[in-house]
């Protein structure tokens, strides 16, 4: 059963209907999520938010916007562009994904390196809970009194309720932006350059790495001017005031050359800058020319472990006889190994899954986490014990249950079954809490 509410009140009606008929419900935006967080399981009521798509209010002075959850990420930025503002989180799917979905997954994007993921840009959320009640979490004042319930809700993948209105922070456009492309003959040099940039006291606006395979694929596809014979390229963007940006461009150029960059290309104008980014953003289109299917992973390792883990990722691909490409947010250690394959090939899915499991295990062993921006959903639910103890999972289950005692909101996601341990100590008789 699927419904398409047009107002917050209709979302409440939909949830109440689910309560009456003892059904679970799942909120769904554009369905661009990669971890299965919005995938219906056991025939829940699917509440699609795409018709809740109005920008309700924009404040230039206070730099926020109230939006409905079905507003597309890029549409909000387009709507406020003439005011010199933008919405900072920029997932690769930003033309198609909804802000409600971004809130659910705590979505990231290349520019989250300096500006932070979705949680740092959400001021307030109006939520319909599993019993049909409505509350405002957070607010336009800097802090809400009491617990940061807004902070708990962001990234909860629909398991704590459905957002019906969201106040997001708008960010002033930087006065100056510069984009650089550095190319290397080894992955190690590119990795050392990433560390060198951070060590030089620079946190760029974006710091993306693409390996040999994906660079070649992208260049063949869009002709962005990437060197086809590079072992790795770094696409780096810095922004801010003119002199600070010039200082950063000079420092990055120096660090790149110190670590064996063959060329450091600074986009001369907006057209060249757009072309360089087009290469990065066309990565997933480019791979369609190589094989019909792909599996995109998402994990994070400490920045200092990037190269070491990449080497393991290649070894895993080699062992499983799979084509592996890497295009990822190097600046914050967020790996996106991309397995390219043809699903018609017998037995390939098993190898793809095995490789995925091994990649996750390698990332965790290096001190990393399961997801940087896609979320856990169904995909990584059973991997949660890799990073969390039974006590850790129990605490998360308790938080979820506090928000949704009925367990009606998107059950079966994020936490593996049996996360809730035995009861904590009982309330002493007569105690008042």
């Amino acid at each position, binding site marked *: 059963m699927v419904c398409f509410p047009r107002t917050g009140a209709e979302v409440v009606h939909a949830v109440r209907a689910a309560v009456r008929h003892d059904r679970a419900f799942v909120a769904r935006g554009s369905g661009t999520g990669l971890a299965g967080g919005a995938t219906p399981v056991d025939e829940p009521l699917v509440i699609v938010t795409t018709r809740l798509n109005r920008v309700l209010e924009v404040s230039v*002075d206070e730099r926020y916007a109230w939006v409905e959850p079905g507003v597309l990420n890029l549409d909000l930025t387009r709507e406020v562009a003439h005011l010199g503002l933008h919405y900072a989180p920029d997932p690769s799917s930003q033309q198609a994904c909804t802000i409600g979905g971004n809130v659910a997954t705590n979505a990231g994007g290349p520019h989250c390196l300096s500006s932070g993921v979705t949680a740092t840009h959400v001021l307030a959320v109006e939520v319909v809970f599993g019993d049909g009640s409505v509350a405002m979490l957070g607010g336009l004042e*800097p802090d809400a009194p009491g617990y940061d319930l807004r*902070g708990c809700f962001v990234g909860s993948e629909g398991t704590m309720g459905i957002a019906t209105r969201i106040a997001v922070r708008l960010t002033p456009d930087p006065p100056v932006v510069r984009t650089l492309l550095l190319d290397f003959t080894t992955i190690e040099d590119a990795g050392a350059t990433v560390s060198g940039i951070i060590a030089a006291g620079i946190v760029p606006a974006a710091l993306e790495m693409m390996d040999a395979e994906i660079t070649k694929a992208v260049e063949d596809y869009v002709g962005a001017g990437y060197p086809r014979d590079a072992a790795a390229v770094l696409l780096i963007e810095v922004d801010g005031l003119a002199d600070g940006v010039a200082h950063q461009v000079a420092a990055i150029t120096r660090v790149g050359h110190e670590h064996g960059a063959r060329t450091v290309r600074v986009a001369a104008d907006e057209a060249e800058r757009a072309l360089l980014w087009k290469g990065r953003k066309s990565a997933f289109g480019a791979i369609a020319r190589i094989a019909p299917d792909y599996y995109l992973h998402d994990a994070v390792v400490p920045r*200092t472990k990037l190269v070491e883990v990449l080497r393991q990722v290649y070894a895993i691909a080699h062992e499983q006889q799979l084509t592996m490409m890497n295009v990822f947010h190097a600046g*914050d250690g967020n790996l996106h190994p991309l397995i390219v394959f043809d699903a018609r090939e017998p037995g390939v899915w098993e190898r793809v899954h095995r490789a995925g499991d091994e990649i996750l295990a390698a990332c965790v062993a290096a001190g990393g986490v399961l997801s940087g921006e896609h979320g856990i959903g169904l995909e990584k639910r059973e991997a949660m014990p890799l990073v969390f103890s039974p*006590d850790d999972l129990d*605490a998360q289950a308790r938080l979820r249950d*506090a928000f949704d005692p009925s367990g009606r909101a998107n059950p079966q996601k994020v936490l593996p079954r049996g996360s809730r341990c035995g009861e904590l100590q009982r309330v002493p008789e007569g105690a008042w809490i």
Partner: protein
Amino acid sequence: MPALAELDELCDTVARARAVAPIGGRTHWEVGGPPPTGDDVVLVRAPSGVVTYDPADLTVTVGAGTRCGELAALLAVDGQECALDPRDPDATVGGLLATGLSGRRRLRHGPLRDRVLEVRFVNADGRVVKGGGPTVKNVTGFDLPRLLVGSLGTIGVMVQVTVRCEPLPAVAEWFATDADPFAVRAALYRPSCIAWDGTRTRVLLEGVRADVEAERAAIPGACTTAAAPTGPDGAHRGRISVRPSALAALGDALDRAGVRWSAEVGVGTVHVAGDDEVALAGARAAAVDRGGWLLREAGAPALDGFGRDLPSPRLSARVRAAFDPAGKFSPGRLPTEAVDG
């Protein structure tokens, strides 16, 4: 991790006690409610010291009992900082996080809750629970670290935290001007703080020298270099949170209430101090009238809570009960109503 024996002892103490209050540097001891007292309240301290710090990762993991000043000194050696900015450098990292009080540079650096990547805390059963993760980017599971920030010691005893670091700015300078603070805000790209006391506006600019000079030139009207503002001081202190657009009107009301104040323009935080409890109560009323609230930081023992009902009181009560069913942590703080049903 801190020394295992020390941690084991802490866990054991928490598990056995009927009432527990985590204690840090006692620099924010009065924040939010009456300090927990009574013979049955066991005061516990978190371990201190650096657990891991690799400057290239731009993160640092410390015992929650580490003093903010010591952490700042350590990071400065490698040209980094974590913009915690406590009122008193003797505050512990865990204590500051528990109060949720963001520093003066929030306009540029963001709120305290955005600094925290991973938290380990001792739960009501005396077991160590981890929330979040050590990497700078992470959406693995629910956001327990944000729940802990500002929880006033009511969810558990924080023992270890990983926070995000930043490169130290090359230059950090304060400027003072008589210009309208809201015009200053509109004219600048990324000031770190705009502090306004009703007459003078003080602006903190950070970055490379040329950027600071460029921003300085953009400040409307005449301005001079200035010392960092000292927060309003007094026996009775509090912090107001209102939406930034309410600040102009709130300033007049605070003057009438007879408190000294310093507002963070563009943020909506106002630091207030008065010579008596009545003045602080007046400041609270002025904040509440404008949709905000006031958290007591010192003095004024009658002004507990926030001056208005907690939003979603039943949800808040359920959250607290989920982690602390017996209400043993920091009794008296973060008032919640009884959970029904």
